[in-house]
Structure formats: structure tokens, C-alpha cells
């Protein structure tokens, strides 16, 4: 196990990432497809003010909340299944959350709270299944858990498409648009609610950090240093699913943030969770904010704005493959 990070190193990493995030917000507010009259932008009630505050900054803040949730969920899942390929998307948890959200859209009219609640329930249910199926003779076998995730992913998609097929035409369109996974100017109330849930989840996971370090050693190892392994795993599972559920409810399924962010950060900050969890939150927020800003600018060459999930997948897919390739000598599973 790595030694605990020094207070100074912690302050340095968190400070630098926070500064980058604030910088990213400034960039997001400053750039777009339209020229802005900054004098007018300072006065509320003008179109330029709405552009900067609602269309750009509001959206960047939403990207930050979702990115933080998915980045930290990635760290949690990687620890839970003891595998670097653990990611809400890969493990089928995002799709499980999407099933919940789609049920909410189709049957409850997609009110904010029911959407988050159903997405959380879907994420939790799927991850509980993945985890249960991944346990062979009392031990978690990462390969089995990942395979279970792949199958549950397919099952979830089948359920989503069934609901979409049976729904009224307008509802079908609503479901399919939502499934594309995109960020837009958020309602400030749902942004606040989501931010509160994500901060709570991240703080709770950070508090569990010492136990998470022990979990990396494996069940026996963790047990030998005095950790209540089943209880810790359950907590981890619930918190990670909460984060995934909130992220999916706010923006639809967006993939690969949970893979890219933790792996890049591990190169810089190491594997100690006390540092990894806040770093993944800030890094996830930074990554998705920048990705979404690029998405907005993509209108200029493309003549249409792609969903941000396209960009994260285009970046994340190759990254995932490189990761597999470079680790080919090691025992991944």
C-alpha cells in the first residue's frame, strides 16, 4: 500500500485541479458560436446575459456536476470489482439507471425527483446484481462481474427499447432524445439538487477512503487489517450507484468519463483514495466541462451540435483500447 499523501501534496493536487476547473468555467463562459457584447452581458435581462449565464455557464456547471459524479463513480466501481475496467457504462450500471429513468419518463411524466429516484433505483439494482453474480464461492471474481455487466447492459437496452416501442409516439421521441446523452441549459433547481447529492456522495466516499485502500488488497487482506469487508462493499455499492443515478438522470447515459478520468489521474496522483476521490471529482468535472464546450463549438464545422456522449465515447473508446493493449502482459481479469 502506498503511504498516505502528505497534506502538502493533497493541497497541491486539489488546488491545481480546482484552479483548472474554474479556468474551464471561464473558458466555457467566454467561447461559443456567437459573438457576445460583454457590456450587455453584464446587465440582466439582455440576450447576451442569457447567453453567458444560462446557455454557457449553466450548462458548464451541469457538465461539472455530471462529470464529478461519473468520475468518482468510476473510482468506486474500479475498487469494488478490483479491476481497472470498472466503469458505470461498462458495468451496465448506466444502462440500469437509464431503464429507471425511461420508466419514469414513460409512466411518471419525467418529473425531476421521480427521474432521479428511478435512475438511482435502476443503478443500484443493476450493480447489486453485477456484484452478486460476480461472487463465486464467496469471492468476487472481476472477470465474472464484468461479464455480468455486459449481459445486464444488453438486457437493459432490450427493456428500454421495449418501453420505447410500446410508448406513445411523443413519449418514444422523448425517450430516444434523452438516451442520446446530452447536456443543455439546466433548470437551476434540478442542478442544485443534483449538485447537493453529488457533493454528499463524494464526501461520504472520501470519508471511506482508508477502507477503500484496504479493499484494493483483496478480501482477506482487507479483513486482516480490521475492515468489515461486506459492510464496506455495500456502502461503496450504494454510494457509487447514487452518483451514477444522479449523473444519468441529469444528462442521460454518458460513457467513459469513469474510465478516462481515474486512469489519467492515477498517473499523476497515485492510487491512494484519500487523494483519488476528490481528484476524480474535480477531474471528472473538468473533463466533461471541456468536452461539452468542444461539443458546443462543433456546431461551427458540423452545422449541428452532436450530443456530448459522442465526444466522450470518441475519446474514451480508443483510450479504453489503449489501456487494454498496454496492460496485455498483466493479469487484468
Amino acid at each position, binding site marked *: 500500500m502506498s503511504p498516505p499523501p502528505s497534506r502538502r501534496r493533497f493541497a497541491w493536487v486539489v488546488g491545481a485541479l480546482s484552479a483548472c476547473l474554474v479556468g474551464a468555467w471561464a473558458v466555457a463562459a467566454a467561447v461559443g458560436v456567437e459573438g457576445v457584447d460583454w457590456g450587455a452581458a453584464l446587465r440582466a*435581462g439582455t*440576450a447576451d446575459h442569457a*447567453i453567458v449565464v*444560462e446557455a*454557457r455557464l449553466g450548462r458548464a456547471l451541469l457538465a461539472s456536476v455530471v462529470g464529478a459524479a461519473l468520475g468518482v463513480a468510476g473510482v468506486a466501481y474500479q475498487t469494488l470489482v478490483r479491476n481497472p475496467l470498472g466503469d458505470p457504462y461498462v458495468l451496465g450500471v448506466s444502462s440500469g439507471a437509464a431503464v429507471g429513468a425511461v420508466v419514469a419518463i414513460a409512466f411518471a411524466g419525467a418529473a425531476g425527483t421521480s427521474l432521479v429516484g428511478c435512475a438511482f433505483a435502476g443503478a443500484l439494482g443493476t450493480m447489486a446484481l453485477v456484484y452478486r453474480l460476480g461472487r463465486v464461492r464467496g469471492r468476487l471474481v472481476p472477470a465474472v462481474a464484468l461479464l455480468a455487466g455486459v449481459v445486464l447492459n444488453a438486457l437493459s437496452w432490450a427493456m428500454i427499447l421495449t418501453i420505447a416501442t410500446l410508448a406513445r409516439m*411523443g413519449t418514444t*421521441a422523448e425517450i430516444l432524445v434523452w438516451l*442520446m446523452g446530452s447536456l443543455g441549459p439546466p433548470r437551476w433547481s434540478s442542478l442544485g439538487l443534483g449538485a447537493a447529492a453529488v457533493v454528499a456522495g463524494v464526501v461520504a466516499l472520501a470519508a471511506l477512503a482508508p477502507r477503500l485502500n484496504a479493499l484494493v488488497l483483496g478480501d482477506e487482506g482487507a479483513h486482516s487489517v480490521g475492515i468489515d469487508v461486506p459492510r464496506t462493499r455495500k456502502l461503496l455499492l450504494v454510494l457509487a450507484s447514487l452518483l451514477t443515478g444522479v449523473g444519468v438522470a441529469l444528462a442521460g447515459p454518458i460513457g467513459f468519463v469513469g474510465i478516462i478520468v481515474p486512469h489519467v489521474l492515477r498517473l499523476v496522483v497515485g492510487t491512494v483514495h484519500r487523494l483519488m476521490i476528490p481528484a476524480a471529482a474535480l477531474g471528472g468535472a473538468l473533463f466533461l466541462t471541456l468536452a461539452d464546450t468542444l461539443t458546443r463549438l462543433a456546431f461551427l464545422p458540423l452545422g449541428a451540435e452532436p450530443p456530448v456522449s459522442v465526444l466522450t465515447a470518441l475519446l474514451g473508446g480508443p483510450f479504453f483500447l489503449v489501456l487494454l493493449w498496454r496492460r496485455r502482459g498483466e493479469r487484468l481479469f
Partner: protein
Amino acid sequence: MHRRCVAQVAPAAIAALVVMSFVGLGGCRRAPTDAATTDTTDLAPGSVRDEIGRVVTPRALPARRVVSLAPNITELMFAVGAGAQLVGVDKYSDQPAPEVDRLPRVGSNYEPSLERIAGLAPDLVFLSKSANKRETAEALERMGIPTFLTETPGLAEMGRTLRDVGRLTGHLAEAERELARMEAGFAAVRERTRALPHPRVLVAVWTQPLYVGGRGTFAHDLIELAGGENVAREVEGFVTFPMERLLHLAPEVIILPTHAPETGAAPAVAAWKRWPTLPAVRDGRVFAVEDSLISRPGARLVQGAELLAHLIHPELSPAGDRDVEQIR
């Protein structure tokens, strides 16, 4: 932007499905095929050329038993007085109600039940290039069922499709009358609005993410015809559009094409209240409008044009609120 109008069960095609379900299953625009669709001189008797140039030999001419796989064709069949010859329709054919409700359903546009169609023993199956898959027509042909593909990318091609439906069902005279009625209706709308100021109009098929109707959509053609100026004419088809550009374009009227706006369009309309700097929002001129009236190349486009004219120009006369949900 090129759009495929065929939906497949794959995430990559979801966008296409979304767009298709929002354009009344018939608004996909491509340059019309240069086929002499009405020229039958080089063909065997009993054969015709369809609108994409295929040679079709209906089991009977005029066709007495017809299946329609596109909502706009179903409307046109009734409009030319051939409704009684329909023996089956796709599940999205909802007009004219209630007559159409009595007809057997053969499934969705993009994956209809071929065996159900075969069981209806049609003389001819009508498909629309934008609402149906080419593969469906090919599979039906292999089963010995003649298929006629229509292609109606814009107002200019309405006459061709209407005449083809009329001719193949033995109602050509009625089709000509219906066409004259439509053209007179469009001309009347154009005449009444031509001298009026042309306000900036947005067609938003989706609010979050923002999908707008650009050039090459029926909604665009109807807005221009009804004395409006489409703010999104820089883009083509139904595409995502940056909110910030829209805030600068400042539309004075916003049209939300909606399925059955009288039931549940209120949230979509209310969602625009968060953009109070838009003149349309400030002045309460955000309207949910029945989608099929303004984006389906069927028999009710004139009705759609008249409705838009009233919404864009309130000075003309108050619009009937049957097809509209207005911002409050």
C-alpha cells in the same frame, strides 16, 4: 446534414428515429429522383413506374385492395375518395379519424408485419420513401406483392404523389380536384399574408436538446408561405441548434410541433418561459401545434398553412384553439 430516415434498433440510428417520429413520418427531404413517373409508354400494359423509377405491376388496375404503410398516403387515399379500397394501414396512420380507426393495422412503418400484409391479399402496397425502408418494399416484392414507392420531399412534389395515388386507385379525377383545392388554399394563404410584415419564426421540434426545423422541411415551406421568416433557415432539415445563437436570432413566434397538443403540450410550452429575453416568450407567442398538420405531406397541409398564418399574423383573425396550445 444528410439524414437517414430509416430506423434501426441501434443507438447510432436513434437520432434518425427521433427525427422521423417528429416529422410526421414523411418530411425527409432529398432531391427528387428524376424519373418520368407518369410515363408508361415504354412499359407493358398494366405496369407503371413508381416515384423512384421502379417498374410496378399491380395485381389489378385500378387497385381494389390497397395497404398503406405511410400516414400521408392513408390521408391522400381518403382525400381522393379511395378510402374504401384500403384494407390495412400502418400503426401511425391516425387521419382521417375516425374512419381510419376501423382499418386493420399491419405494424410500424419501419418494421411492418409482412405476413399480416400478405394475409390481406392486397393488389398494391403504397410506401413512402421517407417513412419506410426500401428493404420492406423489396421483401414484399419477393413475396409476390406489388409495391409502389412515393417520394414527396416538398410542396412541389405533392401533386405528383396525389395524382399517382388517384390514378392507381381509379380516382384520378378526384385527385385533380383535390390538388386544385390544395393549390387554391395555398394561394389564398400566400395572398393574405404577402403584404404583411414577416415576423421571425422558429420551429422547435425539441427543446432540450434544441432541435429546429431548417430549410428543406415542410414546416419551413409553410412558414415562408404563411408570411413568416424562418430564423433557422441557415441549417437544413431537423438538426440540433445552439441556444446562444437562437437567443441572438430573437424569434418573435415559436412553433412547437407536437403530437396531440391538446393533451399534455403545456410543459413543453412552459419550458420556454426560462428564456424571457426572446420576443416570442415575452409576448406569449409560443404555440404547440399538431405536428402532422405542418410536417406530413398529406391532405391537411392547407389547414396547417392557414393555422400558421393565423399564429404568425394575429391581425388576420383569432386562430381556433383546437390545434394549438399557447404559452400562458
